[in-house]
C-alpha cells in the first residue's frame, strides 16, 4: 500500500444538449425577459482600441452539414495582448463573447477587435489568436480550439509549431475576405477536420 493522494477527480462533462441556449443565451431560445441582457452578448464595447473585425463561419459535422444548434464561446486579450482584469487592459474589451449558429443558415458571427500577441511563461510570444469553446447536442466534452489570422505572422507560434501534419495548421487560420472581414469554419470530423486542443 502507499499513501493516499489527496486530490479530487474533475466532474465529468456531459453534452449541453439541444436546449443549451436556454441556459446560456436565453433570449436566443425564446426566453426574452429572463435576464435584462444575455451574458457575453458583446466581445467589445464601442471605443475599444485596435482594429474592429468581424468573423463569420459555420460548424460542420462529419457529413458536411452545418450545425444549426452549435453554441460558441470566445476568449481573447485586447489589441495590446492584455486580458481583461490585467493591469492596463482596455476597459472596452470584454474579451468574452457567446454566440450561436443561426437556426436557419447555421452561420455564426463574432464582432471583436484583433487581439495582440501574448507572452508565454517560458518566454516567446504567441501569435494573435482567439480561443474558442464549442458545445452542442452530440458534443460530449466541449471542444477547445483557436482562431489565428492569415494576415498575421504565425511562424513563431508555439502551438501551431506543434502540429505535425503541416497542412492541418490551415484549419486554425481565419481567411481574410475584406477589410476587417474574416471567415473561419470549424469542421468537427472528416476531411479538413479542425485541430482541437487538450490544453
Amino acid at each position, binding site marked *: 500500500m502507499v499513501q493516499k493522494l489527496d486530490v479530487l477527480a*474533475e*466532474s465529468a462533462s*456531459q453534452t449541453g444538449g439541444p436546449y443549451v441556449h436556454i441556459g446560456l443565451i436565453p433570449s436566443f431560445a*425564446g426566453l426574452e425577459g429572463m*435576464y435584462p441582457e444575455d451574458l457575453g452578448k458583446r466581445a467589445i464595447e464601442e471605443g475599444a482600441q485596435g482594429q474592429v473585425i468581424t468573423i463569420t463561419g459555420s460548424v460542420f459535422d462529419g457529413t458536411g452539414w452545418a450545425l444549426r444548434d452549435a453554441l460558441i464561446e470566445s476568449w481573447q486579450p485586447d489589441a495590446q495582448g492584455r486580458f*481583461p482584469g490585467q493591469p492596463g487592459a482596455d476597459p472596452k474589451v470584454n474579451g468574452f463573447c457567446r454566440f450561436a449558429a443561426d437556426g436557419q443558415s447555421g452561420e455564426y458571427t463574432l464582432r471583436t477587435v484583433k487581439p495582440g500577441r501574448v507572452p508565454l511563461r517560458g518566454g516567446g510570444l504567441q501569435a494573435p489568436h482567439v480561443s474558442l469553446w464549442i458545445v452542442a447536442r*452530440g458534443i460530449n466534452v466541449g471542444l477547445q480550439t483557436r482562431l489565428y489570422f492569415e494576415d498575421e505572422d504565425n511562424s513563431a507560434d508555439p502551438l501551431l509549431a506543434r*502540429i505535425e501534419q503541416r497542412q492541418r495548421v490551415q484549419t486554425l487560420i481565419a481567411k481574410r475576405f475584406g477589410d476587417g472581414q474574416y471567415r473561419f469554419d470549424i469542421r468537427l*470530423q472528416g476531411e479538413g477536420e479542425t485541430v482541437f486542443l487538450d490544453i
Partner: protein
Amino acid sequence: MTMPADATGADAGPLIPRNRAVHPVACDIDYKTSVARSPALPLLSMESTPSEETGPVFGHDTLGALDNNLILNWTKGAAPAVGERILMHGRVLDELGRPVPHTLVEIWQANAGGRYRHVKDTYFAPLDPNFGGCGRTITDAQGHYQFLTIRPGAYPWPNRANDWRPMHIHVSVFGHSFGQRLITQMYFEGDPLIPLCPIANTIKDRASLDRLVAPLDMAHARPLDFLAYKFDIVLRGRRQTMFENRPEGM
C-alpha cells in the same frame, strides 16, 4: 514574464492536464448524434498558456435577486412554478480540494412534466406558464452555491426507439480560467433511468458517473417546504509554480 496571480491571490501555475478517462468518450454509437459530431483525430496536447489560464469574471452586479430561484424567476415572483420543490446546493472545488469562490454557475432544465421552454421541444407534456427553466448564481467565498427549483421530469427523446432522459439539471461552470470551462448534468439519487440513458453512459468510468448523481440531503431539506439535493462540482486545478524558474532546456 511574471504570470498574474489568480483570483484567490495564489501564484497559480499551469492548469493540471485533463484526465480524459473521467470524461465521456467523444463518439458513442448509442448516442447517435455524437457519431458525426466527434473529432476522429487526436486532440493536440500542450501545456496551458495565458489564453487558457485567464478567464472572464462576472460580478454580483450581473445578477438579479431571483436569478437562482427558478420557482419564481420566470414570473418575477408573481406565481410559483408547478412541481416538487427542491433545493439544489453544493460547492465548486478544484482538483486540489480548494473552493472556487466567486464563479458563475448557470443551470437549465425541463419543467415538472419533462418539457423545455424551447421552440424545438415538441414533447406533448404541457408548458408551465410559471416556469422558464434557467437560473444562475455566483459561488460565495467558500465556493458554495444554491438554487431553489422544481424537480424536472424525465422525458423521451428521439435516439433509439424508446430512449428517455433521466431527471437531470444541466449545469455550466466557469471557474477562473477559460480552460476550466465545464458543462455537465446533475442526476438524482435513485432514478432507475440513469443506467438506461445513452448520454449518461457516454461516461465509461462508473465512479465518474456516480459523482454526477446528487444524493437526497434531508439535513438541508426544509420541513413543509422543499427537499434538498447536494451536488458538488470539481473543476481542473492549477499546479503550484515553486521550482519552476529553471532556464529553458535544463
